[in-house]
């Protein structure tokens, strides 16, 4: 108990700073909630592909998946989220969700998004999970993301290069794909207050360019 108190006191800012710190903490917490809310980071907890396109930067990947052979049988989460145990599943969802949300909100996303090494391992596991019977005998089952990273084996999509997102990929690849449009997260009055009468409200589908 004593130790805890000492820790608390240690963390407590000097008296004359307290007001500022409380206000700042409030602002930061507010921003955090705003980021989580606006960016729909919570949506990461769902398995529905539609939740991924809360972010328009995911449109090209949604579109290529939707039109591909996996659009029928496998959801984004079937490939991109571990399916072996519950804890890992939500750990990955939470960390990925927060990371992507932060990138998105701060506009850090690159023009060409590339899957990270942890993501590769997860996807590879999932390919094998579904296609185990197919690849059992050719020893491809042993290839994990880490092995492939070290150039010690081929990932499934090193050969199946068009599966599932196609081989030409960037944020610009299909920016105005006919994907489902989600309602705005802001109430109309607030949106009008900030942005004036926005034409976007009246549309349910983004328009094609030409």
């Amino acid at each position, binding site marked *: 108990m004593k130790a805890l108190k000492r820790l608390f006191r240690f963390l407590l800012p000097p008296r004359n700073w307290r007001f500022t710190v409380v206000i700042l903490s409030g602002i930061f917490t507010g921003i955090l909630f705003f980021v989580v809310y*606006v960016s729909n980071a919570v949506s990461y907890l769902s398995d529905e592909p539609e939740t991924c396109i809360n972010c*328009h930067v995911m449109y090209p990947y949604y579109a290529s998946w939707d039109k591909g052979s996996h659009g029928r049988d496998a959801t984004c989460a079937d490939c991109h989220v571990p399916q072996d145990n519950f804890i890992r599943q939500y750990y990955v969802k939470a960390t990925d969700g927060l990371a992507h949300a932060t990138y*998105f909100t701060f*506009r850090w996303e*690159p*023009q*060409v998004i*590339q899957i990270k090494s942890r993501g590769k391992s997860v996807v590879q596991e999932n390919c094998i999970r579904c296609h185990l019977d197919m690849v059992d005998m050719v020893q491809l089952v042993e290839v994990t993301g880490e092995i492939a990273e070290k150039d010690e084996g081929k990932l499934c999509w090193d050969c199946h290069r068009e599966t599932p997102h196609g*081989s*030409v*990929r*960037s*944020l*610009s*690849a299909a*920016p*105005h794909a006919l994907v489902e449009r989600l309602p*705005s*997260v*802001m109430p109309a009055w607030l*949106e009008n207050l*900030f*942005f004036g009468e*926005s*034409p*976007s409200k009246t*549309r349910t589908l*983004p*328009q094609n*360019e030409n």
Partner: protein
Amino acid sequence: ERRSEAQLYFQMVEPIPEWEPDNEVWGVNFPRQYESYKKTLDTTFQSKYYGSVMIDYLERYPEMVVMWAGYAFSRDYNQGRGHYYSVKDVHNTLRTGVPQPATCWTCKSTDVPRLMNEMGPSEFYAHTWAEMGPEIQNPIGCQDCHDPNTMNLRITRPALAEAFERQGIDINDATRQEMRSLVCAQCHVEYYFGEDNYLIFPWDEGFSADEMEYYKDRVGHTDWVHALSRAPMLKAQHPDYELYKTGIHAQRDVSCADCHMPYKREGGIKFTDHHLRSPLDNIENSCMVCHRQSEATLQANVYDQQNRVSELRRIAERNLARVHIEAKHAWDAGANEEEMEDILQLIRHSQWRWDWVAAANAMGFHSSSEALRVLATSIQKAQEASIKLTSVFNRYGVEYPIEMPDLSTKEKAQEYIGLDMEKIREEKEEFLEKTLPQWLGSI
């Protein structure tokens, strides 16, 4: 909230008049494209062989001076830089110290479509470079590639349309993806001046080095007679489109714009990056859309191929400089036309083939295996000429091998071919100080 970004606006704030040469006027409507276009002003990037920095080719490859003896290229030749500099560089180059036709302006300015519309192409070409000088104010820009009403891509240079027409192809049938290369093919192509300096693309027999060589032999075209070897020479100019056409990227329908003007996204707006430049300055957006490798790997792939091409081009250059000088010695020893005829033909073809690769940008990356094949035949032909020359030397008792002059720097090479560089530079300075201000102040 970034959701509204997903909307696309294509609103003309201010309609653009037909033949408007001023990029700023276009820029009011399309600020993103205009802002990125203005970045072609930047001259900082340098890759192993290219980039937007100034590169003095004659300094880097001094043998070229000898190879172009008697031709304006031996005075001055730089690696091209951003579109923004197109007019300025034509003013500055020492090559415009000799009289040039207005045809030289064709690929340099948005004022050209305007002038051609006013006077017709033949009339335009028939003027001299200096006569048209005061009219040329704006560098390459929107007007060169776009229709101001629809913003669709549009061909504004008749030479391209005519070249296709002669092959029975109507350029208006081109698809959108083809147009993404064809707008570049208005300028980044091999050309020559026909009668009355009419601009012609020599594609009637085909696009390859061999076919264009055959075409030029057939029509009997010669750009100049070499000052040392007296060979009837051909100059190749940036056959970027032609070489690219033979490569795997073209075969897979990857266009010039795909690599040099990749799409960019700002918020929900997708637009074309108009900062035209070396893709090595922008590997991430340019190559990695299609290739999942790291920037370092992709750059290494490019350099691997360029290094191979560079090795052969250096061999070709050394052979060619040597054979011109050898031919000069043969004439000096008393050789006659008949003895020299096929030797000169070999030199003509050899240098054409070397130039077809060397003048094309990208050091062969646009199609490395074709570039290497063509360079190999260049090497072979120059050496074949050397072999034949030794018989001539034998006949006239000339000692072989011929001693070679020191060609290790541009200055030494220019001195060897007898160029008075000081005088040439003085004349240019006078032009820049006296004439040019009048031209620029003229409109």
